[in-house]
C-alpha cells in the first residue's frame, strides 16, 4: 500500500510538472493547451482507483495554475471544470471499453470533455456567440492535440509504464492491496 501511494504521488508530480512545463511552450491562442499533462492522467486510468486519479487531477490543476500565476482567477475555474468533467466522464467509459480501444480514444474523449467543461464555465464570463466561435477553435484543435496525445500515451504506456510496473517502480492498484489496507 505504501508503494501504491508513492506511485500515486509520483504520477501527480509528473502530471503537475508537465502542466507547468507546457505553459512555457509559446502558443498563439491563450485558451489552447497542448494537454501534455493529460498523458499521465490517461495512462493512470489503467493503474489507479478513481479517488486517486481525482487526487492526481486536482493536484495537477492547483499546482499548474499556481505556477502559471492564474490560481483563484477564472482560468483556474475553467481548467478545473474541464478536468473534473473529463475524469468523471472518462473513468466509467474506460472501465467498460478498455478491451476494445486504446488510449487514443480516451485522449480524444478527454479533449472533448475538457472543452465542454471549459466552455460551460466560459459561458459565465463571455457572451454566448463568442463562446461558440472559441468552442469551434478549441474543439477542432482539441481533436488534433487529442490524437497526438493518444499516440504518445500509447507509446509511453508500452515503452515506459509497462516496464516500471514490471520492475515494481510503479505499483498499480489491485484487490490484494485493498485487503492489506
Amino acid at each position, binding site marked *: 500500500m505504501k508503494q501504491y501511494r508513492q506511485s500515486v504521488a509520483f504520477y501527480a508530480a509528473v502530471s503537475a510538472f508537465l502542466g507547468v512545463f507546457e505553459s512555457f511552450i509559446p502558443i498563439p491562442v491563450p485558451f489552447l493547451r497542448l494537454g501534455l499533462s493529460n498523458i499521465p492522467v490517461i495512462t493512470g486510468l489503467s493503474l489507479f482507483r478513481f479517488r486517486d486519479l481525482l487526487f492526481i487531477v486536482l493536484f495537477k490543476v492547483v499546482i499548474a495554475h499556481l505556477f502559471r500565476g492564474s490560481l483563484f482567477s477564472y482560468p483556474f475555474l475553467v481548467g478545473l471544470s474541464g478536468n473534473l468533467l473529463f475524469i468523471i466522464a472518462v473513468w466509467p467509459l474506460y472501465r467498460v471499453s478498455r478491451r476494445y480501444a*486504446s488510449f487514443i480514444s480516451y485522449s480524444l474523449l478527454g479533449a472533448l470533455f475538457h472543452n465542454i467543461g471549459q466552455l460551460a464555465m466560459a459561458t459565465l464570463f463571455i457572451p454566448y456567440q463568442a463562446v461558440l466561435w472559441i468552442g469551434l477553435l478549441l474543439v477542432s484543435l482539441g481533436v488534433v492535440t487529442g490524437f497526438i496525445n493518444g499516440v504518445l500515451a500509447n507509446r509511453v504506456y508500452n515503452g515506459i509504464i509497462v516496464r516500471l510496473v514490471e520492475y515494481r517502480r510503479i505499483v498499480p492498484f489491485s484487490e490484494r492491496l485493498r485487503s492489506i489496507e
Partner: protein
Amino acid sequence: MRGENLRDLNGITQPVRFKPLDGIITGAFILVVILFSIFLFFTNSKGQTGVLVIQSPDAEYRFSMSEDRKIEIPGRLGSSVIEIHDGRFCMIHSPCQNHICMNMGWISYPNIPVICLPNRVSARITDSQESEQQFDGLSR
C-alpha cells in the same frame, strides 16, 4: 511474473495499439467538428438582429440594424454621421482631427465599439436579447 501485474488489473497483456474503435471515434470527432463549423457559419450569416446603441454627450440612441439608414449625431465638435448598411455600420463622417473612428471601417459583430473621443460619440451593436453579459476586461 512478466506482465502478471498488468493482467490482473487491466485485462491488457498485449501492448496497447491502435484499434478499430479508435478509428471510429477519431472519424466521428472529425465529422462532429465539420458539422459544427458548417452549423456555425450558416447561423452567423443569417443573424443581423442586433441593435445599434449610440452614445452622444447629450443622449443615447438606439437603431435597428436591419434597416439601412444614415444617422447624424450631434457631438461636442459637430455632427458625426453613422451609416447602417447590410447589417453593418460605419462612422462615415466625423469632425474630429485624427479620424480614428472613421478608420475603424465597417463593423458587423456585436460589442465592438467605434468611439470618437474628441466628439464624444460612441457606437456599438448589442445582441437583440439585451443581455447583461458585458465584460470590460479579460486577463489570462
